[in-house]
């Protein structure tokens, strides 16, 4: 009985080895013969190419300036990008250049030796390029940022007018935000509107991202999460007073932030800069209602930082797969040098993306876009802020963020008190992540 199993396994193993053997021969034969000087095509991983134009925009603009190099975008899934990319890198089927979609996963790729050292490219770039330092590990740079999102406070001017309230003025602390949200809710109800004062999406980011960025000495990796407590207390209060949809309502009804703000269910909403382009597109398509809106700097912990408001957001960067053919590496590096330049930033700003490279010219290009609110406070919010990373690059970041995500759902759903949940998160971080 045993013997036939063993024989069976032996056959299977031999067969798979034989097949693997065949295929590696085939690999060697099918390697394309390319001449270093001729036209080169490098591949670039992107997601939802039909609805996410940034990859093609960068590829086209670069090709126009460098006709010998073609950048070909490859389709990946938006939500499962990192799973697909991990599989492709492990099997050696990944494209030449790939996006660091989340800063959280950058460490894994870098530590797993799946990113080429790009220090020579970084040396040619403007040091003020936002997010560049996030990709630096032990003095070497492994990815070049092309976009840098930050969180703002979106507000609906029409609803503020209807409620007879003053617009945000750029000096708000979180206390001012809460007071205004409460007053707004009452005023809107009095005016017969079913809209609420504000909407906070169900993610952990809008609470924890701000808390980490704005609290002095807060450190995600310290395993001390007490800095989150005041932020949770104030959000729970807002939810209890009815100034925003409760977490339970938002999750069980699968509320989307696009619909909450876009169909005027809430007068304010803290959200990332990517929503500007989405909102403009949805107002044009009719998915969102037509109303006047603006962006204000994110509310601050206290008034000391209103001159240069502190907010958070992770950069999005491009890295090179070290398995790239040698003769293509130069072309790929040339593309990455372009991606961090002002030319690329202009091309991106024109499609409503917040580029990592900031300058007055880029700001002008962005605000020249049809539908972007052009008031002074919106311009200030876009051009002046101190954006801190939501996910500091470290071995522990992903594990800690997962634990904090559990803490988030248990606090916001009211299943546990803030202190208990944070204490539990601290002990889990100690026992499951920081000791690894």
């Amino acid at each position, binding site marked *: 009985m045993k013997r*036939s199993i063993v024989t*069976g*396994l032996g*056959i*299977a*193993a031999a*067969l*798979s080895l034989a*097949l693997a053997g065949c295929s590696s021969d085939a690999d060697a034969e099918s390697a394309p013969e390319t001449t270093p000087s001729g036209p080169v095509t490098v591949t670039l991983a992107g997601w939802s190419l039909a609805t996410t134009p940034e990859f093609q925009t960068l590829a086209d603009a670069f090709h126009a300036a460098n006709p010998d190099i073609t950048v070909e975008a490859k389709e990946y899934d938006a939500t499962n990008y*990192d*799973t697909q990319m*991990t599989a492709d*890198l*492990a099997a050696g089927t990944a494209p030449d250049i790939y996006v660091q979609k989340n800063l959280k*996963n950058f460490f*894994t790729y870098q*530590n*797993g*030796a*799946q990113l080429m050292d790009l220090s020579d490219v970084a040396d040619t770039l403007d040091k003020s390029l936002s997010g560049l330092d996030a990709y630096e590990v032990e003095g070497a740079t492994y990815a070049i940022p092309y976009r840098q999102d930050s969180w703002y406070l979106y507000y609906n001017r029409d609803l503020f007018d209807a409620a007879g309230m003053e617009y945000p003025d750029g000096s708000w602390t979180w206390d001012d935000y809460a007071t205004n949200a409460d007053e707004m809710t009452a005023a809107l109800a009095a005016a017969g509107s079913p809209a609420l004062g504000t909407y906070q999406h169900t993610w952990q980011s809008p609470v924890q991202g701000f808390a980490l960025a704005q609290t002095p000495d807060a450190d995600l990796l310290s395993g001390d999460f007490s800095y989150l407590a005041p932020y949770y207390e104030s959000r729970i209060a807002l939810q209890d007073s009815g100034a925003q949809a*409760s*977490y*339970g*309502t938002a*999750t*069980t*009804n*699968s509320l989307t932030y696009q619909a909450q703000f876009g169909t005027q269910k809430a007068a304010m909403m803290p959200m990332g800069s990517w929503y500007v382009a989405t909102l403009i597109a949805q107002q044009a398509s009719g998915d969102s209602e037509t109303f006047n809106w603006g962006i204000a700097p994110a509310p601050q912990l206290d008034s000391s930082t209103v001159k240069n408001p502190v907010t958070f957001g992770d950069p999005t960067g491009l890295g090179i797969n070290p398995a790239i053919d040698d003769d293509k590496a130069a072309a790929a590096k040339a593309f990455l040098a372009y991606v961090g330049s002002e030319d690329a930033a202009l091309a991106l700003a024109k499609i409503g993306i917040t580029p990592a490279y900031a300058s007055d010219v880029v700001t002008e290009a962005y605000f020249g876009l049809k539908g972007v609110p052009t008031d002074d406070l919106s311009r200030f919010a876009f051009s002046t802020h101190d954006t801190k990373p939501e996910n500091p690059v470290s071995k522990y970041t*992903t*594990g800690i963020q*997962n634990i904090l995500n*559990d*803490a988030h*759902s*248990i606090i916001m*759903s*009211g*299943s*546990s008190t803030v202190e208990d*949940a944070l204490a539990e998160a601290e002990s*889990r971080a100690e*026992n*499951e992540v920081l000791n690894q």
Partner: protein
Amino acid sequence: MATTLEARRPGSRLKWRNTMLGWSFILPNFLGFAVLTLVPVIALFYIAFTNWNAFGTADWVGLANFQRMVGDKSFLVALSNTVYYTVFHIPLTLGLSLALALLLNRKMRGVAFFRTAAFFPYVTSIVAIAVVWNMLFSPESGPINQFLTMVGVSNPPGWTTSADWSMPAVILVGTWREMGYYMLLFLAGLQTIPPELYEAARVDGASAWQRFRNITVPCLRPTTFFITVMLTIGSFKVFDLILVMTNGGPGQSTLVLSQYIYTKGFVENQLGYASSVSIVLFLICISITVVQFLVNKRSEA
């Protein structure tokens, strides 16, 4: 099992002949199965003893992953949640799907429609299922709690937004979704029972319950065995439903092993550790299956 070839005609040449014969039937499927499933599964057993992170080489770490598991509170939470789900989901689904199959195993007007309806939850997009059930469970505005309040429940549960009630909610939806699937298998099993047996029992004056006990249950045994094994493994591996319904929350109240494996493997890229957790899951499933297998063999004899 009834008479077999070996028992009928003993002899070692015959044994050889039977082996060749048996393998000739199995081989077409086995080739594909061995290369595409068995080899990766064997690889998994190796990876479980390494610190592989999906890239590069895997370093042998011996039993370190298993030692880590013992002290890993989240793993223990996931394990006990999985057992919680399984213990309720299996009997509920088994009972309901058998009841449905018995109810719909007759010639009656509209039976095709009702069978299709019962099977529909399994076919409907799981996203739509999660959305609708979550809305029905909504603590403040949901129809379920509105109904409960109406009939006088003063403090209705928070369902998927409550750490205590999220698991019952998920079990309910899991049962609702899969009962049609297993009903289909029971229906197919019921077809193999010769109608003459019922006729004879009826002539002997057996009651409906007696006929069920003495004809339906024993004749359905191979089907029931199959369904029990599949249901056990399926419950221990529950994944996509939890992912879309609660994503393991609130907190870790619905975190299950499959999801833990996915998180460790693909979110935190600790494939070595994820593989060792899978082996524990595998060992639990296979030991229960072996017990079921032996019980089945005994009642056969």
